């Protein structure tokens, strides 16, 4: 593919990415939502965060694995405990990364 076609494709990608980002917030933020929709939306963050997180920590390739070599899963446990205890985003992330770095260092 030549660079001009790639450029035009990128413009197309930009448009189809921006529209779903823009429409709900620009249409909904100026009106009051029906209570049921409002209640439903309150569950979206929890649902979408776990839907994005779970595959990254319990899958390796296309395999569910809880073996010790699945560092991402095991490091999630101290990360979760620190988050519960300290309520600090930065602290949790640092602990999670340190656990992964140290485990990798030990296992060579």
């Amino acid at each position: 593919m030549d660079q001009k076609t790639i450029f035009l494709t990128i413009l197309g990608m930009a448009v189809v990415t921006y529209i779903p980002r823009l429409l709900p917030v620009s249409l909904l933020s100026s009106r009051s939502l029906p209570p049921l929709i409002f209640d439903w939306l309150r569950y979206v963050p929890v649902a979408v965060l776990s839907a994005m997180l779970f595959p990254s920590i319990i899958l390796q390739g296309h395999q569910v694995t809880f073996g010790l070599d699945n560092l991402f899963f095991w490091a999630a446990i101290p990360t979760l405990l620190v988050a519960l205890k300290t309520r600090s985003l930065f602290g949790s992330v640092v602990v999670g990364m340190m656990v992964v770095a140290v485990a990798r260092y030990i296992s060579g």
Partner: protein
Amino acid sequence: MDTTSPTKARLVKRGWLTGFAQAIPIVLGYISIGIAFGVLAQKAGLSTPNTLLMSLLVYAGSSQLIAVGLFKAGVPALSIIATTFVVNLRHMLMSAAVSPYLRRWRKAELAAFAYQLTDETFAVHSVRLATGRPVKSEVFAINALAQVAWILGTWLGIMLGGLISDAQPLALDYALPAMFVALLVFQIKDRIQVAVALLAGLLAVGLLLSGVDRWNVMLATLIGASVGVSLEKWTKKRSS
């Protein structure tokens, strides 16, 4: 007694500082994934301006990585655009979820905010917005810093090429998963939300394994949130 109220300028400045602190995990994650994207885009034959432009205009990590693979495979432009659309459709749910908190915002501010709404900025904002009202400057500081990190990472990837292929010793690749774990913990306030988190997470995995790899996050979110709100109504009815 503190009788001096902070001036608006000071509030704005403090907003930028808090925003920067909040953005640190995103910045670490985006620089490292941005590098990976830059390297792959070069290998797939995208020019430097086109690679940077994609990070500037599209600004959606997973879809950019998928697109690079499709460019390399010679997939037609329209299919690449259609795939991008499907992969990024999940932002609709995020945009809808933050909308009740952005009531007083001007159209231009909403347009700028939506432009930089990513999985990760949403994750941070959804926690902050629900617990009160962070100043706008804080929200925009997080967004601006995140995208700067993404573009910087992309640029580093282009410049360094294959030189640095390994972010593993620093565990930079764990910055974003760890951030999601923590933000999920901050979001969860009751048992129904625990159930929703487990259900949506496992559904996303299950769908992915059964081949629904582009709609899985969206479907799992729709089902998870619906089950959550149904459980809420059901338990309220029973206790009343």
